[in-house]
């Protein structure tokens, strides 16, 4: 009885599978094709959505009969990565075009989620406008290119001129070392205890934002790299790593930052850009070049006075050594998924979305640093935002993250270490010890070496 039932059920299941297969092939087979585009839209981050809306209209006008289905994923950064990885894992949910962080792209390339774009790019005349550094951002270990960069970014200190002046700090402010940064924050706290002196992202809820804007902006200013390209090893334990954690401990336990519980709220980025800075409740913010996009007339929180209220200073290295200042750069790309059934169309969509005019308008709106040469040299772009010149000027001192598939996991381990330190659950030394253990688990003990001590 059971076996008969089982056979029946299998037949039923087979019919069901057959039906879905038929239906999906018929929908893509007939004239009216649908192209799915997935990207993140969360809190203050609304410019990608605006850009996609615009490109959708242009594309549909140019390709009658083809429908663009936008899929704005409304979740925080870490959840976005999980969501797109889950979507790209199955052909029934994979979008055709996906908005990919360069931090995750190497890992997703290795997972086989993305399509190499070389055959499309070789016939796309605009591709020559992208400099080699930009092209390399989405290049896999196999030498193929898996994404077209939308723009890049740098990171630095924003400061409220008024609050710092009141605390007795001379304008324009340019700290020469970490100690100068802490000293300024302490001066602000002493002058007005109602103001939050400084914001440094830390902890798991902000995901890669914590690792890059928070931790790596410190670590890359020390003697010790995260990954040594010379020895091809990940570096830990090191003095640079523990000093960076110590800086966080000093800042958080000294009451110079947001409280750890505010910091561990996934909305903290929206609160900082949308409320604390515009309301002059925060004096110093270590953040990315795109934050100004929040305050433009089309931004999530228009704030016309921002450019006169805020100043920008490059992040100093630990003791002013090296080049004296530093920055970190990342950025996002548009990619075609491996399971897409309309790869040609998807590639055409990307070429349209990132042509000169569209790249320029997106970069201006979202406070991105242009990667296309023709956009970067365009006076309209250069004069679009008072901070463009400052953030572009950081490119000579900037650093890039290790472009390896293991990096996202390493980033997770860094977030765990940061969170343990800012909540006071671990000392910097203990947090570094657990990080080293996790790191060995991720990349293998033979690929880990100690740095300076």
């Amino acid at each position, binding site marked *: *009885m*059971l076996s008969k*039932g*089982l056979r029946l*059920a299998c037949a039923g*299941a087979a019919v069901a599978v057959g039906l879905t297969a038929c239906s999906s092939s018929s929908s893509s087979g007939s004239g009216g094709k649908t192209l799915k585009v997935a990207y993140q839209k969360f809190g203050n981050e609304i410019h990608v959505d605006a850009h996609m809306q615009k490109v959708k209209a242009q594309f549909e006008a140019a390709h009658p009969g083809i429908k663009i289905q936008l899929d704005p994923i409304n979740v925080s950064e*870490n959840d976005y*990565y*999980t969501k797109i*990885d*889950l979507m790209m*894992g199955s052909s029934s949910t994979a979008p055709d075009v996906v908005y990919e962080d360069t931090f*995750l792209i190497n*890992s*997703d390339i*290795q*997972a*086989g*989620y993305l399509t190499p774009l070389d055959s499309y790019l070789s016939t796309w005349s605009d591709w020559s406008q992208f400099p080699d550094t930009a092209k390399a951002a989405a290049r896999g270990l196999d030498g193929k290119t898996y994404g077209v960069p939308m723009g890049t970014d740098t990171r630095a200190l924003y400061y409220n001129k008024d609050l710092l002046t009141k605390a007795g700090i001379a304008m324009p402010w340019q700290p020469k070392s970490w100690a100068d940064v802490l000293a300024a924050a302490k001066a602000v706290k002493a002058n007005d205890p109602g103001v939050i002196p400084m914001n440094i992202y830390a902890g*798991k*809820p902000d995901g890669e934002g914590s690792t890059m804007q928070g931790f790596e902006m410190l670590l890359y200013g020390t003697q010790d790299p995260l990954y040594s390209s010379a020895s091809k090893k990940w570096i830990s334990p090191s003095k640079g790593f523990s000093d960076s954690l110590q800086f966080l401990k000093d800042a958080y336990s000294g009451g110079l930052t947001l409280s*750890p*519980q*505010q910091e*561990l709220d996934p909305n903290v980025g929206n609160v900082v850009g949308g409320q604390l800075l515009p309301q002059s409740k925060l004096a110093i913010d270590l953040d990315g070049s795109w934050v100004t996009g929040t305050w433009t007339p089309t931004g999530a929180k228009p704030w016309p006075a921002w450019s006169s209220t805020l100043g920008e200073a490059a992040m100093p290295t630990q003791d002013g050594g090296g080049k004296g200042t530093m920055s970190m750069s990342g950025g996002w790309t548009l990619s075609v998924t491996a399971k897409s059934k309309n790869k040609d169309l998807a590639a055409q969509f990307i070429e349209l979305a990132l042509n000169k005019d569209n790249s320029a308008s997106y970069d201006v709106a979202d406070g991105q640093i242009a990667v296309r040469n023709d956009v970067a040299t365009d006076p309209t772009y250069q004069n679009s935002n008072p901070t463009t010149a400052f953030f572009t000027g950081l490119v000579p001192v900037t650093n890039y993250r290790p472009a390896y*598939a*293991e990096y*996202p*996991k390493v980033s*997770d381990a860094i977030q*765990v270490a940061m*969170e*343990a330190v800012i*909540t006071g*659950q*671990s000392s910097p030394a203990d947090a570094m010890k*657990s990080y080293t253990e996790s790191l060995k*688990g991720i990349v293998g003990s033979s690929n880990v070496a100690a740095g300076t001590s």
Partner: protein
Amino acid sequence: MKFRTAIAGEDLAAAALGGPTSPRPGRAARLARSTRQLPLAPALIMLILFFLGPVLWSIYSSFTNAALTGDGAANPQWVGLENFRRLFSDPNVTNGIWLTVVFVVGSAVIGQNLLGLAIALLMRGRNRWLRGTVGAIVVSAWVLPEVVSAFIWYAFLGQDGTLNQVTKALGIGSQDWLYSSPMLAVIIANTWRGTAFSMLVYNAALADVPLDVQEAAELDGASGWRRLWSVTLPLIRSAIVTNLMLITLQTLSVFTLIYVMTAGGPGFASSTLPVLMYQQAFKFSEVGYGTAISLLLLAIGAVFSFVYVRVLKPEA
């Protein structure tokens, strides 16, 4: 899911209390019975496909390095016992086991179980109006979807929550409960939510305790506590086992409540095994390792069940 367990709970409770035994059916009756169960076959097959299937898959993946991204997503490799080796050397897992035990003992064994028993005992013999009112209030917490109760407690205990508003108004000052004592917060919330179930089980069990035994004990001069300890509790022993077993297994797998209230944090301070499993599989993308943690959870559930069955075995 909840509903099904509840029904099963009542059945079990009824069975444990010794329902009427039916006479052994004859051959014809057996045949009739099996044909009668034929319509159940599709449901059974669906269960095998969609319930047993994923269980077997998760056992398999716990021996692989399956991941959401990177190499483990493209070609998951068989890694043997590697995930389990890592499990036992991972301080977050050790911490997670401890937190899970604290959560289960605190919110289920002590919280829900004792509070449910206390309410059921206090309600015994009270007037109908009081019983109805108390019952309705307690059960309403249980009727709410888990995510809603989680939000209620988040709103109550959060930094700007109701509790802090009240304590501030009283001049006691405030503290962020979800940050300073996350485990206590989730234990209280889960006790609040689950007490109704224990109360219902004990209500039913107490209704079957014969009055004459009670009266006899009273005539012998036994005090209230003595009657409870020596007469009532032994008589409802099997209901206690059933209740403990059900609420323990239910509490072991609580995820939504904790995830909404604290997301397992700060740090890993409230990352019980289900939350840790989620973090490993979906936040850190290590599906293989996450499923290994789920098997550990299963083992802990088995240990609890075994202990209950042995310790509270009815005296022959």
